[in-house]
C-alpha cells in the first residue's frame, strides 16, 4: 500500500484522534489526511476495531464466586478483619479504663491522710501518757529500725 511521507506522523496520532484528544488544528489535519489516504483510513478502522474488541473481551466472569469467597473470608476473619475503627475504639476504652484505675490508685495514695511520723508518735505518747509500743501499728515501716526507740520514749 502506497504511503505518503506524513503517514507515520498521522498514524501515531490516530489513537489520540479516537479519544478526541488532539488539539483542534491537528484534528482537522489528521482527519483531512485520513479521508484522502486509503492506508491511514484502514489503520484508523483497524484501531477502532481493536478498541471494540478489547471492550468486548472484558472478562468479569467468576465475580459471583469471588464475591461469595470474599464474604466467607470477611466472616471468618471476624475479629482480625473488622474495620480498624472498632479496634481503635476498644483500645481507647482500655486506655481510658487503665487511666481511671491509675487515677484511683494515685488518689488512694496521695489523698489519704499520711501515716504519722515516729516523732509525732513520740509526742502523742508523752501527751497521752501511753507507751509508744501501743502506738506501734501506726508506725510507718520506714521509721522502724534498731534505734527507733529513743531514750525518752515511753514503754
Amino acid at each position, binding site marked *: *500500500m*502506497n*504511503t*505518503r*511521507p506524513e*503517514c*507515520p506522523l498521522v*498514524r*501515531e496520532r490516530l*489513537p*489520540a484522534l*479516537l*479519544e478526541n*484528544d488532539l488539539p483542534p488544528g491537528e484534528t482537522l489535519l489528521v482527519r483531512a489526511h485520513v479521508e484522502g489516504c486509503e*492506508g*491511514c483510513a*484502514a*489503520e484508523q478502522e*483497524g*484501531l477502532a476495531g*481493536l*478498541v471494540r*474488541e*478489547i*471492550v468486548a*473481551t*472484558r*472478562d*468479569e*466472569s*467468576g*465475580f459471583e*464466586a*469471588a*464475591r461469595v*469467597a*470474599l*464474604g466467607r*473470608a*470477611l466472616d471468618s*476473619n471476624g475479629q482480625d*478483619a*473488622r*474495620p*480498624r*475503627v*472498632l479496634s*481503635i475504639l476498644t483500645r481507647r476504652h482500655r486506655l481510658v479504663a487503665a487511666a481511671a484505675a491509675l487515677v484511683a490508685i494515685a488518689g488512694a495514695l496521695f489523698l489519704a491522710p499520711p501515716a504519722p511520723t515516729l516523732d509525732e508518735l513520740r509526742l502523742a505518747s508523752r501527751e497521752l501518757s501511753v507507751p509508744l509500743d501501743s502506738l506501734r501499728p501506726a508506725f510507718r515501716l520506714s521509721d522502724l529500725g534498731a534505734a527507733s526507740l529513743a531514750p525518752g520514749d515511753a514503754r
Partner: protein
Amino acid sequence: MVHSDRTLAIDARAGGREAFDALVTRHGPGLLAFLRRMVGRADDAQDLFQDVFLRAFKGISRLEDPDRVRPWLVTIAANVARRHFERRGRQPHEHSLEGEQLDAPDDSAVNALDDLETTERREGLQRAIERLPPRQKAVLSLRLDLELPFQEIAGAIGISEENARAHHYQALRSLRRMLEPASTAPRTGDAT
C-alpha cells in the same frame, strides 16, 4: 434506593458491613476484569480480587475522602497487581507472537472456523495484552475496561495525566503492531 459511593463509603468507614458489600458489588466486577487483564489467569485474578477487598475492608477507616472511594479501590488493585508481578519476577505468559497466522478458511466449515477464528483472535488479543509493559497494560485496562477518565487513572497509579494518555496510545499502537504485523505498517518513501 441506590446509595452514592460517598454514602456507602461513609457507612463502610464507620463499620457498616452491608455498605462495604454494596461497594464490592458495584466496583468488584470492573476491578476483577482489570485484574484479569493484568495477570492473565482467572484463578490468579480471583486471588488478587480477595487480596484487594480484604485490604480495602481493613483500611477503609483510613479513607479520608469518601468521594474518592473508587480511585482508592483502583489504587489498591493496581498496587496488588504490581506486587504480584514483583513477586513473580516476570510478566505472565511471555511468548512471541512472531509468525502466528491463521490458516485461510475452508468454505465447507465456515461457521465453525469463524467461531474458531473468533476464539483464537480473542486469545491472541489477550496474549498480546499480557505482553504489554505493566503500566501500559494497567492504563489500557483502566481506560477501556473501567472507562475511567485519564485524570483518575493517573491518580490511581501515580503518574501524570499526560503520561497516562501517552501510555494508552502507545499500548494501542503496540497491540496493532503485534496483531497486524505486516498488512498496515506504513512504508515511508513509497511513491504516491
